[in-house]
């Protein structure tokens, strides 16, 4: 016995203890939903916020109303994927091992692409253990187009739909003559830029696109040179799909460089971003998003939001669609009469029409599993916001609404059904 064997033995013992405790399955009374998103690392706050909303929605919208299938409760089980594709696939395996059949994920289209691919392969290789992928936030259009599959359902409006709605609103604003497009250099940023070019050309051929560029994602220290270009181009509006620190950096640099016109964004809210912009963003920052918080659409929505904020102080409902995921899944399970036969549940979810708590109708389009719903253009403001973000006094207020945005848009999805 030398060092090598001894250490291997020691490693074996440790591995045994740990892996054994991990693989132990839990009691199977509840219907479990695996929440696979970053709970540590730079995007942890987004992940934790989403997790809180999932837990709250499951309790508030399903469990407190008697559960599904005559008494089964929803249980959210959290898995930290550290926003890495590799780690997500490991956590997916762990979740499936624990007998979980519903996978919820949203942060990063890259991770969503990895999961949808892995779910497709898993379901083909293990027909007795199939799982559903509930994508609540990843908006890369490819997921419901070229890469679509039967097991994937998207509850957020994808990047194309959001751009369609955004350009609908921009088209009515005759002051906008020149538009600057800037985004992160990867699939989502490119999708935003392509959609903007396409829709602006169709709806406002007179608008000139004075800039269309991509910057390296997460690598730009100082956005000032970009801001200079935008100001010098004389643009009347800019559009960006940036998120995280790239959004903050770009937005602050542009405002500081003296840009006075609207900045249309996808993700410039919550997770500290609203607070960071504060007064500087007033009247400039616009957001395209589903789920109306301000003004509240109904007493029920207001009560739901207020109760969430009371239960999770400091957190916001940054992703209102999570409520739709939970309600629609509950409905589908009840309609299918099973929470184990994924083909039946998926068939029930396909084409479902649902009246959302946020005052919109949500249709899960059957041909590509893309949710169709009202999309709003919101303004970053401190006026008339009942529910602010980041406890900053600033929040999002709906300015205009596109009803059932892109309901009849085309898709290249060629879905193979089991």
């Amino acid at each position, binding site marked *: 016995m030398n060092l090598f064997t001894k250490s291997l033995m020691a490693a074996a013992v440790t591995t045994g203890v740990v892996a054994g405790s991990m693989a132990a399955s839990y009691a199977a009374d509840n219907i479990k939903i695996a929440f696979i998103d970053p709970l540590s690392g730079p*995007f942890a706050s987004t992940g934790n916020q989403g997790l809180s909303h999932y837990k709250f929605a499951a309790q508030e919208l399903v469990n407190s109303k008697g559960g599904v299938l005559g008494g089964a409760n929803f249980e959210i089980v959290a898995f930290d994927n550290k926003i890495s594709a590799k780690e997500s696939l490991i956590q997916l395996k762990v979740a499936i091992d624990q007998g979980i059949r519903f996978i919820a994920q949203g942060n990063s289209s890259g991770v969503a692409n990895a999961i949808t691919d892995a779910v497709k392969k898993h379901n083909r290789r293990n027909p007795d253990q199939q799982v559903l992928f509930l994508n609540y936030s990843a908006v890369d259009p490819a997921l419901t187009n070229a890469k679509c599959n039967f097991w994937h359902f998207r509850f957020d409006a994808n990047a194309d739909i959001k751009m369609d709605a955004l350009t609908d609103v921009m088209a009515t604003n005759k002051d906008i003559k020149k538009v600057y497009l800037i985004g992160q250099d990867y699939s989502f940023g490119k999708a935003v830029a392509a959609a903007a070019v396409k829709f602006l050309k169709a709806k406002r051929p007179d608008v000139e696109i004075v800039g269309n560029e991509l910057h390296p994602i997460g690598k*730009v*220290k100082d956005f*000032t*040179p970009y801001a200079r*270009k935008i100001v*010098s181009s004389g643009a009347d509006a800019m559009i960006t799909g940036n998120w995280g620190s790239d959004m903050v*950096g770009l937005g602050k640099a542009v405002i500081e460089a*003296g840009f006075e016109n609207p900045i249309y964004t996808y993700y410039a809210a919550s997770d500290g971003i609203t607070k*960071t912009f504060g007064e500087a963003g007033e009247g400039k920052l616009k957001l395209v998003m589903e789920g109306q918080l301000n003004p509240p659409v109904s007493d029920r929505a207001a009560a739901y939001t207020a109760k969430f904020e009371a239960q999770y102080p400091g957190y916001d409902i940054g992703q209102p669609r999570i409520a739709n995921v939970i309600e629609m899944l509950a409905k589908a399970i009840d309609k299918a009469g099973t929470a184990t036969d994924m083909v039946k549940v998926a068939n029930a979810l396909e084409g479902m029409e649902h009246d959302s708590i946020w005052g919109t109708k949500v249709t899960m389009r059957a041909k590509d599993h893309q949710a169709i719903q009202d999309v709003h253009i919101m303004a970053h403001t401190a006026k008339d916001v009942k529910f602010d973000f980041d406890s900053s006094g600033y929040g999002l207020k709906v300015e205009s609404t596109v009803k059932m945005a892109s309901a009849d848009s085309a898709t290249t999805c060629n879905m193979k059904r089991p």
Partner: protein
Amino acid sequence: MSLFIVNILDGLVTGLLLFMLCSGLTLIFSMMGVLNFAHASFYMLGAYFGYQISTYVGFWPGLILAPIIVGVIGAAIERYGLRRVHQYGHVPELIFTFGLALLIEEVVQFFWGKSQMAFEAPAALKFAAFSIAGNAFPAYKVFMIFIAIGVFLVLLYILTKTRIGMIIQAALSYPETVQNLGHNVPLIFMGVFGVGTAMAAIAGVIAGPVLGTFPGMAVLLGSIVFVTIVIGGLGSLWGALLASLLIGWLQTFAAAYNLRMADLLTAIGLTEPADLAQSLLSDLWTLTLPQVGPILPYLLMIIVLALRPQGLFGKRET
């Protein structure tokens, strides 16, 4: 032309900021012979302390206090950490500073969380100093330029004109001799390390409101700082200054001008393929200068190291 002038000024701000980090790092390198991987982490600590102090007593006391605190922390790390690892050799030392960088990032997240802090420039400087063709130049950036130049001049004066500066310079080159002359060389080393980290902290406090105060800020700047002093020549203050300004302008101008690879390729007589999406070279054709901007410093470093391993101004090889 007006845009060019604005970019010159912006690049100057970036370059000088970089220099405040590089000057400390290069001094520390001359002293210990090891690159401090965690140097940018002290810059981050400076920004966070500056932010925290500014929430209690405002920006200006933070500008004074945060560097002092960080300098003391840096000196303590030198005394109790680096000095201990020094005996194992250079590679463990480098690994130690690498681990320290990871640890400081985790500690920052432990106390301040992962989101960006709402660190604001002082209200007194929140106006546009001047504007060139519609492009506002904030007064705060003018202030940054002055602080950086001030720090450089003070450093230069201390190093070249004062007695303590002479001893430091001597200790850098001949530590044993200086020790034998009765000076406390370990104390000098600790002091230089503390001052170097304090300078990084000053850079952090003044950069925090502009570049953002978040846990990734050290990583974002960390390797660039390295690259800069390697290009400038390890241990050379003037080299660090030149390389900092070079990199500052390089990055600013690379981001500012949308030169397209397609134009270049067409200029040398190639024709763009009709169906770009199907072409294997589509990425080459759509490449623009801002896309490659962030990797230019690394490219420059590899070229410099391959051709002149001691860097532009360095006197010795590493």
